[in-house]
């Protein structure tokens, strides 16, 4: 039987969840024996080259590109997992929810103390750029999500245990410490 294929992406996140995945240390060698990676920053494959079994996504959706990528993942992955606070609930980026988008953009490009010179009052509006959405959305409001791995970031051990359980079909046993956050 061929190895299960994994894809990963970071949307409106900080890559911290991916860093946490690297924190499995030498177990990454075992992971490579267990699975094959497709589209992911880990192997730098930019587009899906085949159907995958598991998609891991960190970060919520704050713009049209995030949504496009998320929908691609849903199309290409049998199982989709929301990884970390931002994917599950919007996280820090969602702090802007409740503030009108215009106010946020004005603060970022016109009025903020770190703006510097912007005499022409230019806002980034090139057609090539993704469009900012009105709110930051958690993944499950856009597509169906199969599993959630909580944490900011989820610990390396939690990611490891969850992945191994999923690809080996063993029951996931999560020690309390791994999902205790205070």
């Amino acid at each position, binding site marked *: 039987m061929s190895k299960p294929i994994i894809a990963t992406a970071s949307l409106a996140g900080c890559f911290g969840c991916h860093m946490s995945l690297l924190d499995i240390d030498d177990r990454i060698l075992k992971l490579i024996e267990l699975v094959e990676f497709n589209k992911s920053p880990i192997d730098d494959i930019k587009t899906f080259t085949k159907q995958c079994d598991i998609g891991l996504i960190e970060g919520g959706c704050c713009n*049209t590109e995030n*949504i*496009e990528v998320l929908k691609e993942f849903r199309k290409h992955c049998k199982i989709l997992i929301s990884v970390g606070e931002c994917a599950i609930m919007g996280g820090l980026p969602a702090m802007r929810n409740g503030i*009108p*988008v*215009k106010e946020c*953009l*004005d603060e970022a490009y016109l009025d903020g103390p770190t703006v510097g010179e912007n005499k022409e009052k230019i*806002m*980034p*509006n090139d*057609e090539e750029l993704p*469009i*900012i*959405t*009105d*709110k930051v*959305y958690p993944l499950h*409001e*856009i*597509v*169906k999500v199969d599993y959630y791995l909580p944490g900011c970031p989820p610990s390396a051990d939690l990611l490891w245990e969850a992945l191994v359980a999923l690809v080996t079909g063993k029951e996931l046993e999560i020690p309390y410490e791994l999902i205790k956050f205070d």
Partner: protein
Amino acid sequence: MEEKIKSIIKTSGNSPDRLMDILLSVQKEFRCVPEEAVSLIASALGISEADVNQTKTFYHFFSSKPVGKYAVYLNNAAVSGMMGMAEVADEFEKQAGIKFGETTPDGLISLDYTACIGMSDQEPAALINSVVFTELTREKVKEIVAGMKEGKTVESMVPEYGDGNNAHPLVKSMVKNNIRKAGPVCLGDYDAGKTLSKALSMNPKDVISEVQKSNLRGRGGAGFPTGLKWLFCSQESGERYVICNADEGEPGTFKDRVLLTERAKMIFEGMTIAGWAIGAKEGIVYLRYEYDYLLKFLNSILDEMREKNMLGKNIMGKGFDYDIRIQSGAGAYVCGEESALIESTEGKRGEPRNRPPFPTQSGYNEKPTIINNVETFCSAVKIVEKGGEWFSNMGTEESSGTKLLSISGDCKQPGVYEVEWGMTIKEMLDMVDATDVQAVQVAGPSGVCVPPSQFSRKIAIEDLATGGSMIVVGKQRDLIKDIVLNFMEFFEDESCGSCITCRSFNMILRRMVEKIVEGRGIKPDLDNMVQWGEIMRNTSRCGLGQTSANPVSTTISNFRELYESKVKDVDFQSDFDMKKAIIESCEAVGRPPVVHE
């Protein structure tokens, strides 16, 4: 302003635990509690501005901006909706030229909604400057608003007075009692002072054991044995308090309003007997602000009882000192919860306390306190008068005596009925002349929505427990939209916000019900709602969060087919609308709102 506020603080007792009274007086005087008042009050009472602000912002009837000279609070509870509130609201908006939530530019009229004001048998009803207007229609609204524009006093706009003490010179209200059935306990014969005199010649322990013998259980809804509560409190040492819970906030209940109107002396007598039994010297009635129109009248009854030596020093020459004061609420459902009520009585936000310690151990001012419902005190009077056995012979094995039911909704005879516990729902519906019934909401939003297949169930603490609210829902109603959604909006508003699940899940559940009403619901939503309700029940500190999922969970379990007919049988469906989501930012940066997919 400063002088006025200082004098209010002085007359209200100049103490942090009278903050509610101070804020109520300031609100009345200035039609709001201005920032300036907050700092004056804080420095006078020696507390922080944050302390004053947190109380001020907690209650519905305190405002930061001035309400209108005529402040209209229209009841938007489910029964009001059933009886035509939408039309009345529409007429108010037309006549006043503003929307609800707004004040006219000249400051004359403000329009707001409020939760159930205890008039479910005469809806739609509204409070205008604490004067009650019932059975409103478009025509009546036209007259009322015209009167406001002419500058008439609100009192003079009351067309006619109701029956009994509603017509008392200190009440002058159009509210009707609608007592349809008087029973032998609360609404039967009553001879003021007779039982008090008997009780004061008894040993306090014997008074408690008589109440225990009666098996009287709390009439507010929770059904805790009254005698036991009194016994626990009497065994504590030091100062003790008696509190009467007249914060009748459960939508659909109005029987305490009738008792306060017609049996005020009996309530106070019951509180005095309780004070004798447990060894208290002070009683407090926590009166919901919606019943403020009864306040002067109730205080006059207290004065009368003091004159007759039924209150005060050396009552009836038996050497017992005891007095009662009335504490007004300011609009918060959660204050019906006993520990939240105590917090509010102490001038704080009405946030429930952790228990234990229970109020009988540490209640008002951290002193042992009993809190009983209005009806419980009335029942106690009859029990001491006629004996516990007489009382326990009525009703069922586990629910002795009679119960006042406030019955409203789709029936021909809404009103107050005193019946023995044990009546079936079917018997009740015959009694109130209700036909074509879709469901009966027992015990208000926090209770159970009972379908016709269960109409043989009994009204009793062991089967269908109730604090008195009974709402009959006819077949013509949209159960999910008119009832369930209304109830969830109510809980979302009334959660004190202390427990995370209660604060957020009530909102989430309301949204999900809305989603189903709007035709966007899917099948998995139903099980999710039930499960989330269960989480809220298990993780909330007080009865509000423990029961506020009931409108959803009891209707899903009893009317599942109705829900299933409204939801799509799919696994997942996104409500996300890309076009809508990008409009704002495209406008802000000046680019066409087009997504190339």
